[in-house]
């Protein structure tokens, strides 16, 4: 019985004030101060951006990597609603919550980076549309997805507020938003890879391929599962709850299968295009290529067997390796293996790092607030709760 009908979500409860939320508050305040300076004195006042590296940490880190790390909701929804794996249902809400924050804050971050942000509405004004632009597709799609996710997540708020009627009405059409919530991230996560194509020879051939959309899409799905592994372990440890091993174990196997396919595509592509020799040159770009792919291979060693996947520490480490692999894939393409000619270099400034940290803090704070006050995480079995009290 319990395996067929997992515990429904319930608020975790407890105090919102603690060391973690306090630190988050401080980091968010620092971020706000830096953003004010940027708005009044321009990007150069706080960032190390230059014309050789016009996209820095805020675009590549907060938006490209941030949104990919926020693919948990999409990946789990794919499993539950498309591949009909209902047993993973308890993972949907927490994963969706992570996605909601990741994307919403990525959207906020891009506004800070946009040089002429007051024109942002042009993305939605047909007279300005450039349908040939990969950026247009990404920007429009991400904004729509953020709206769709808030609708997908709204039952949580409706339940909390006791609005049963609205909840039931929404339920009838929710499948439309679930489908949108799968198609939209498929579109823009793939396009984030296509974004590299127009940059041509400036991107090292190890990352410059017309197959980039497929590679980025697969990587985003994989990252989604990796983040769920990571998040579940962290949430279980922070809230002293049981780890949902019976769900994470088979989900990790799905992840490994996708990763095997990813590695096949990635290496076949590099070899097919005669770019593989570049991976054996004595430079940091080749090294970065191998570190990136080692992170894709590591999970096979860590959690290759059913037995190994019962070990929470191994699941946690595998989750981290997967996250690193996705982070590096994007960092490599857009920054490390991106060469605009001699004389240009970029490393994020302290202020840029602090803003990214502030965004991360906002995500953690939001996650704590919502899971403690709203029904997101599965209700804990009674004995465990008693032990905690």
């Amino acid at each position, binding site marked *: 019985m*319990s*395996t*067929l*009908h997992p515990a*429904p979500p319930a608020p975790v409860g407890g105090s919102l004030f603690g060391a973690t939320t306090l630190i988050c508050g401080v980091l968010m305040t620092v971020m706000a101060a830096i953003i004010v300076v940027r708005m009044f*004195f*321009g990007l150069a006042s706080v960032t190390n951006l230059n*014309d*050789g590296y*016009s*996209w820095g940490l805020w675009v590549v880190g907060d938006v490209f990597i941030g949104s990919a790390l926020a693919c948990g909701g999409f990946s789990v929804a794919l499993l539950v*609603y*498309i591949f*009909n*794996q*209902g*047993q993973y*249902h308890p993972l949907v809400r927490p994963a969706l919550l992570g996605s909601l924050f990741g994307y919403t804050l990525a959207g906020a971050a*891009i506004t800070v980076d*946009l*040089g*002429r*942000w007051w*024109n942002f509405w*042009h*993305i939605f004004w047909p007279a*300005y549309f*450039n*349908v*040939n*632009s*990969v*950026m247009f*597709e990404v*920007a429009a799609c991400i904004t729509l997805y953020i709206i769709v996710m808030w609708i997908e997540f709204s039952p949580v708020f409706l*339940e909390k507020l006791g609005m049963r009627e609205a909840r039931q009405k929404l*339920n009838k059409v*929710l*499948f*439309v938003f*679930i489908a949108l919530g*799968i*198609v939209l991230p498929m*579109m823009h996560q793939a396009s984030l890879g*296509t974004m590299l*194509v*127009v*940059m*041509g*020879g*400036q991107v090292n051939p190890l990352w410059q391929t*017309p197959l980039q*959309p497929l590679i980025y899409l697969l990587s985003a799905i994989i990252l989604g599962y990796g983040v769920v592994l990571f998040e579940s372990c962290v949430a279980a440890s922070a809230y002293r709850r049981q780890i949902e*091993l*019976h769900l994470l*174990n*088979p989900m990790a196997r799905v992840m490994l299968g996708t990763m095997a396919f990813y590695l096949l595509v990635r290496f076949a592509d590099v070899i097919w295009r005669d770019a593989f020799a570049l991976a054996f040159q004595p430079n940091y770009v080749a090294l970065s290529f191998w570190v990136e792919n080692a992170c894709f291979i590591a999970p096979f060693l860590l959690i290759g067997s059913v037995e190994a996947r019962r070990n929470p520490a191994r699941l946690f480490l595998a989750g981290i390796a997967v996250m690193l692999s996705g982070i590096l894939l994007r960092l490599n393409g857009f920054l490390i293996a991106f060469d*605009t*000619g001699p*004389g240009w270099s970029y490393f994020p400034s302290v202020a840029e790092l602090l803003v990214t940290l502030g965004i991360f803090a906002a995500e953690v704070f939001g996650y704590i607030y919502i899971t403690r006050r709203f029904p997101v995480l599965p209700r804990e079995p009674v004995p465990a709760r008693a032990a905690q009290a």
Partner: protein
Amino acid sequence: MDNDRSASTAPVGNRREFIRGCLAAGGAALAAATTSRPAAARETYQRPPEALGLLYDATLCIGCKACVAACKRANDNPPEFSTVDKLWDTPLDTSGYTFNIIKMYRHGTMQTKDAEENGYAFMKTSCMHCADPSCVSACPVTAMTKDPTTGIVAYDADACVGCRYCVVACPFGIPKYQYDSPTGKIGKCELCRHRYQNGHYSACAEVCPTGATLYGRTSDLLAEAKRRLALKPGSLTIYPRGNLNGGPDQSYEGYVGNYKQHVYGETEYGGTQVLKLSAVDFEKVGMPYLSPKSSASTSETIQHTLYGGLLMPFAVLGAMTYVAKRNVSRAGEAPPEAPGGEGR
């Protein structure tokens, strides 16, 4: 213990469902892919017949930088300093405030002009006005446009959102952003299109004393460039100055340079409207190797294949909606009154 058991039993019970789900989703996606129109590859664009441009002949350039100063004046740009005394405009590269600059190649003792070994040479850096510009393809809000007649690649600050994809996309590193301003714009050469109505043309070509920068129709400039390449190095020939297609005759007699047999911009990325001649290898003077196929055409072929007419997205969305509806309602059957509602 309970957890372990469920881990092994739950997937078995659902395996058939899983396979059915896979088949349904996969089949629907496949159907979507095959019904969508087979998008034709987007060819690399070529220059419009009346395209305007410049011909820069590095062997004629004496590095006086009159063009750099004239460009600043014509575009109302402030000086940029790189020396301690800050007396003169001394930009080291193009920027949001400098659209044209003369760079220098140096090697060894720098004795001979236009020699790769122990020599020096000049090279103009400004917008190439590509036939198939990456910046125009990249711009999400049509702030970068290519004029269908003149082929001039123009920028509209009022449309621009400041995403700087054009900066990242350009293979020549031409569009540049004004990072020091809270309302920064993109800055780049627009071939002085704002001066045409007053009978003027590109300021850099207007002021060039040696005709190293020549203005005109690109088709005529290309013919002139090929004429020079066919001449014997060291022989005498007539060099036009200013505007190749009009104005007073300012031509003069000069010696033919020791050209590399390559008109840069003839075929690069489908061709550019600014053409270049050099005696030093083009990659050594900062002009990158570019295939005749533009990256914009590759990028747009991918975009149009995936999203052309939004056919594929809607087909996949339809398939996903169908599968999601079936699976959601099936999940909803099980616990009709589950607290918290499992009807999702």
